[in-house]
């Protein structure tokens, strides 16, 4: 079969692109709130204010003149990440894992000089990495010390967990595992593997690559069914709290696991994609309807919402 029918998709509650844009995003996400997630600096400030765990912000470079003070400013920091606040597609992110005297070291071991850091920040400020070339600011944040529980599930890169939050209720989750084909990027349509995560327990459901089901990771050979996310309720609660913080009704929260600090929100997305349905082998509509039903009766706190989701969205 090359094509399926609209009736069958409707029966399974699959959300299509048009429905996502017109109904989920159009009716729930107010345009004026977009900058809260599109500008990562704003996200971070808001999150820290709301007590949501995020990688610590070390500093912000807003002006070209700030680049001269970078060396002094970073004197105490050994591992950090420099990224553009409005960058897209992971462009312009410089990861520094250690120091070598005056110089800095990238994860690959190659050396970045102080001059190199300054040029990178200058590039970010002049808008080299932002969409449309608009001037941007450079954020310096603490490097996440990734937990080793996902070792072997991902080829290079570290997996993050994407949770779809509908009006504050976590409705669906998946983790994206990079592969050799995706070049270490956790981008599904570049060949990364998507693994649906059960909302109630945090264990793996289905795995798909290029929209087709698979059992083991194509590069590491690890059985993907064995994947289980630790501290799962904390993941869900973080995601649920993001709703109060952004006021966006249809939201994607990308969460990573730090060895010491536990789950941290890395990024929020006002237009999360639909591939998560394939990874879960489940449509969003039925769950969203369930949430709407509950919203008519109750006004729940984030913790209650998580409990609700864990109870009703178990597979």
């Amino acid at each position, binding site marked *: *079969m090359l094509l399926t029918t609209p009736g*069958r998709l409707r029966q399974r509650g699959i959300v299509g692109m*048009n429905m996502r844009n*017109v109904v989920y995003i159009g009716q729930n996400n107010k345009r004026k709130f977009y900058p809260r997630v599109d500008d990562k600096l704003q996200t971070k400030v808001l999150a820290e204010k709301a007590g949501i765990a995020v990688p610590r912000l070390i500093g912000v470079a807003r002006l070209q003149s700030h680049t001269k003070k970078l060396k002094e400013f970073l004197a105490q920091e050994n591992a950090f990440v420099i990224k553009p606040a409005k960058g897209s597609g992971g462009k312009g992110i410089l990861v520094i894992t250690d120091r070598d005297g005056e110089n800095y070291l990238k994860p690959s071991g190659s050396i970045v000089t102080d001059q190199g850091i300054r040029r990178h920040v200058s590039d970010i400020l002049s808008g080299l990495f932002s969409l449309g070339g608009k001037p941007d600011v450079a954020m310096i944040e603490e490097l996440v010390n990734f937990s080793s529980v996902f070792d072997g599930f991902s080829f290079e890169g570290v997996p993050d967990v994407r949770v779809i939050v509908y009006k504050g209720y976590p409705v669906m989750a998946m983790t994206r595992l990079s592969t050799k084909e995706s070049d270490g990027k956790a981008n599904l*349509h570049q060949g990364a593997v998507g693994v649906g995560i059960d909302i109630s327990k945090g264990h793996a459901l289905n795995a798909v690559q290029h*929209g087709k*089901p698979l059992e083991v990771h194509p590069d590491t050979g690890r059985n993907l069914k064995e994947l289980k996310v630790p501290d799962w309720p904390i993941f869900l609660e973080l995601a649920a709290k993001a709703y109060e913080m952004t006021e966006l009704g249809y939201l994607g929260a990308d969460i990573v696991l730090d060895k010491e600090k536990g789950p941290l929100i890395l990024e929020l997305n006002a237009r999360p994609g639909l591939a998560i349905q394939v990874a879960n082998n489940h449509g969003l509509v039925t769950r969203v309807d369930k949430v709407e039903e509950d919203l008519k009766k109750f006004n729940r706190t984030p913790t209650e919402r998580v409990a609700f989701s864990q109870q009703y969205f178990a597979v």
Partner: protein
Amino acid sequence: MRNKFELTILITVLMVLGIGITLYKINVLGFSFSPDKTETVWTVESRINFIADGGPIKLSMNLPDNSNGLIVTESLRQATGYKLSREVSEDGAKRIVWSREDAPKGRQHIYYRANIFRRKSAQKSMKNKAPASLPKISQPFTGTYLEAAEELIKKAQNTEQGKIKNGINLLNELNSPEQNQSAALLLEMPREAGGRLGLASDLLTQAKIHNRIVKGLVLSRDNRNKKLSSYIEIFDGKKWQLINPKTAEVENPDAFLLWQQNNESLLEIEGGSKAKVRFSSLATKILANQAAIKGGQHKHSWLVDFSIYSLPLSSQNAFKILLLIPFGALIVVILRNLVGIQTSGTFMPILIALSFLQTTLVVGLILFLTVVCVGLVLRALLSHLNLLLVPRISAILVFVITIYLAISVIGFKMGSEVGLNVTFFPMIIISWSIERMCVLWEEEGGKDVLIQGSGSLFAASVIYILMKNNFIGNMTYAFPELLLVLLAIILMIGTYSGYRLSELRRFEPMGREEEKN
């Protein structure tokens, strides 16, 4: 909910307005959806012949009126040395007047030519108003003639039949004197003026039937140097019916050009003699929409007056293309939101299609692919230099011009002129395309460039083919108000939340699972 309501109202208003104006233009103004539909128009030439006395001369001719579904526009008044003016008499009859101070003595010719268009809807002009009273009988019947007339009228009268039928019966009686003594007697009645036609009219008036004598040309016939033919019109209570007095049959008024009525004089001359006028008519076919535009302009219909047809021809051609752009936008909307084809940039496909219009499709595709591929390679080299956005695009534009120049020169040397067709406008489009593709390549990878690039080219080709289509070109040009309908459709698709065609493929495994369960 309120949004939905407003949108529905808006869509309905747009639809009704667009379709309404279109229907009006088709049914009343005579526009046509079909670009090749033709309409008959007639050129009527009147040749006036007279002998001038020498010295001042004044010649006037009654003009045909817009009536009976025909529109008259003047095209030529050829009379060298004569001054031209117009008169309108009290009862609304128009006359054209030629005058000259010192006409040479002898035979003279004056030509007058008019174009006649057929009007779609019968005009409800004052000519269809009920006449106030019966016309005066030109020569009253007396004595035996009165008896004969009364007998004839009695014979033809039938209260159950309409006035038309009665009138026709009467004419028939009059036309067959061999079977009817009264008719024979009446025809022998000495008449001062009007002859047999006047008699017929008098008889109808005697029978209390509204009638009048009209003169004109039957355009459907072959007319060459003809006089005007005389007809009788009978008012049937609603409108005047044209009747041929010789056959006593109702004629189709569609092709009858009314030139003279109410005994207006056809030709008047001062300072000359032996004025004669002869008419010739010629039927030609022109495009229906052209005829509709000309007719509309003549009628001062605001739909035609305040439209692109009132613009100079050169700008009309530009607008012909401009009007196709919304159509392209509709195609993009359909392809992206209903079919689910990915294109790079929302309106890039339209712009690419426009540049294809200047090169033709195959040549355009080849040129585009070549330039874009070379441009992408050069752009990749540039990207190592870490340039800012604007200088980067500018550099690419310079590259594109150079590549393009090279293609044109090499092509021309090899005997092909296809490269010469591209102008400035496509240049900008191509450089922008290259830039977009490059950004895409960096952000999403080469595969996406391929998908979106081919999607764009596919959409551009579809739009190009439709833009080239004669029918669609005619439709957008002849009915610009269809833009409102187009807008309504786009708004409707804007609220469509169903699946895209591509999603039936994308989510196909999930549909399959259901089958197993």
